[in-house]
């Protein structure tokens, strides 16, 4: 299964730049195409397309979302077993295992190392066998934006 690009595409290339699988190709200002075998259904293309020109694997049109509002993983360390499945599941490599232990002792833990590159796909959350990760709206960033907007 794969996401697809509709005739609404104006060839801006935003989807191609965000795709972590290198699945999208196309010339500037010309309709782009998603390679079925490479698409991993992370949905990033749908979230960036200003034209609403992307359909998900079920054929439903994707809505553009401001990147600052994309969901981010929240890791509950109490239930996390540090197995590293989430880190491997992440297609952009924004999660990492700590190089220092948590609190006292020697236990390692995963953390969101590079929030800016996170595409909010939620694969980390889906693949975590311990269900220790939930995808949430980034509260902090939102507050900052809100403050800016109200100012």
């Amino acid at each position, binding site marked *: 299964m794969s996401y697809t690009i509709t005739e609404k595409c104006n060839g801006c290339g935003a989807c191609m730049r965000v795709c972590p699988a290198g699945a999208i190709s196309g010339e500037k200002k010309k309709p782009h195409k998603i*390679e079925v075998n*490479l698409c991993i259904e992370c949905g990033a293309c749908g979230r960036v397309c200003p034209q609403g020109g992307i359909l998900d694997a079920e054929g439903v049109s994707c809505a553009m979302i401001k990147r600052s509002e994309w969901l981010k993983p929240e890791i509950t360390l109490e239930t996390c077993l540090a197995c590293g499945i989430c880190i*491997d599941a992440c297609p952009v490599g924004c999660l990492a*295992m700590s190089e220092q232990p948590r609190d006292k002792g*020697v236990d390692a833990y995963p953390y969101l190392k590079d929030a800016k590159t996170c595409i909010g796909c939620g*694969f980390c959350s889906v693949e975590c*066998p311990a269900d220790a990760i939930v995808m949430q709206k980034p509260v902090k960033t939102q507050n900052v934006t809100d403050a800016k907007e109200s100012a």
Partner: protein
Amino acid sequence: MNKPYMGKILMVDLSNGTMTEEAITDSVYEQYLSGMGLGAYILFNRMPAGADPLGPDNILGFCSGLLTGTGSYFSGRWTLVGKSPLTGGWGDANCGGTFSPAIKRCGYDAIFFKGISSNPVYLYVKNGKATLQDATALWGQDAVETEEALKKQYGQKAAVAVIGPAGEKVSLISGVCTDKGRIAARSGLGAVMGVKKLKAVVLDGVQRIGAHDPAAMKKLSRHCAKWTNFPMPLSLLPGTMMALMGTFLRVTPVIFAQDGLLYKTILKKWGTGGMNQMSVEMGDSPLKNWNGSNVDFPLKKSRKIDPDIVKKAEIVKYHCYSCPLGCGGICATKGKYSHTHKPEYESVLALGGLCMNEDLDSIFYLNEFLNRAGMDTISAGATAAFAIECYEKGILTKKDTDGLELKWGNTGAIIALIEKMVKREGIGDLLADGSKVAAAKIGRGAEECTVHAGGQEPAMHDGRGDPGFNVHYSVEPTPGRHTIGAHLYYEMFQLWKRVKGLPKPTPLFMKGSKYKINKEKAQASAACSKFMSLGNGAGMCMFGLFLGSKRIPTFDWLNAATGWKFTPEEYMTIGERIQTMKQAFNVKHGIEPKNNFISSRAQGKIPQKEGANKGRFVDVEKLASGYWEQFGWDKNTGKPKDETLRKLGIK
């Protein structure tokens, strides 16, 4: 997406740079799983009989596991396969880290290399495109430097498998390194990569890995995690208590069948090093090149490798992919290197007790040095111990050793010797291919000082203490292997709880009964081999499997991941098929199974006069015969019978 395997392999011909993607049919996975099973299937069918292990016809395969990435725990192991230049037969090496899922994320279950490149190259796979790149600038760099350079270029997410200088110099005891110090070390397959001029494999894929029933996978994983975290009072004990427990196990005539929960507690607290002192005390660790015992290496010597002392250097735990336990650790070290992966039990004893070396700092240093060089710590330590014995007996003199005073426990000389082995300098060149090759070159009775099985130095588990080790060292298609079966392993796997017809060990028994040869022992050994072949096809970690078959749901994970409805017995048949195919590979390539029996010293043909294994002799010949019969292999020659091959569908 809902299959747990990718259904494709990549075949790279290094001679002409061609790359062929091949689809693998479902029936192959149903018969052999993926991982080592798929590797055996490809190598058996495609490698011409008598192929030179260091020639273009040898095929080197990087194989992931069927369960890797499916939501199961303890399933992040990958297997390196090829014809071993060390033993001349089937070779494989198993490794954790993060490389196993990386293979599948590139869309393949395995990547194979044949041919020989004319100049150093590495394979780079990204977004469904594989290319060979020039590796001239990387050639000569150690494994960690190479990995760092490649990750700087391609990003931290890329998984990298490399050879170090040992592999480049075609040392027959070299391996392939990942994750800055995890190493697929056995069978000498680093030499195959080196001779092919393949410096590294860099994988940067993002493909998703499926499972037939993800919800069921998760439920099973939760069950497994419950047992992984099962609280045990043992975890509160200090390392010294482990040593005393070892002493107790040495003196007691009666022992109890062990439950894997004990071992998982040791692994969780200390890692494999939790056994350091205990093994010396109970007669599990060979000492002084298999001639010594706990009498030569008493508590006051072994306390320098007390697991609590090793643990003090640990900064943070290291988990391989999908491991909820985390037996590894990243340690601080003194001297040239700042960090190292926590030295494993095998490395500590091979570089320590086997050479009578008591200096822990030197063990840390050599551990990192050898990981970077891409040389097997077990074989390096064992070959050093062999050289020391030759020197002590006058077979080697100061003139041969370039002036090194190769005496038991001479730390400085041991370090210098191993550094020379990696550089292939002077005496190091002689020893860089392991003890069997070196002994043949030295002559003068040096062969008497070697301990090997078919050319492979066995691991630090004495088969005179647990006869099961001697069976598997001797009968496995990959001789000298310690990660398949033993009396102890059978107890911990608890297979009889899931597989019909397997004998249940008695909870309390006389130690001497381990040495009695009977059908139940043969059944137990065969079951271990079948189960670990299955496990290596699935990408499972043996330490995880030690939890016991009801607590780590291997069979159920396999069914939930694939949608098959196989019984545990049917899965054991898959293991049997993989094991038989490896044996058939050996026969095809002219190996006489009998020639792989472990050296008589380790069998106890001249029994030890003191220590835990005093008076013990293990009749490998008789045990092998019983084992072969269990598999339908000829009980005199160990060669699979035609009817057996037919029954298993091996052509």
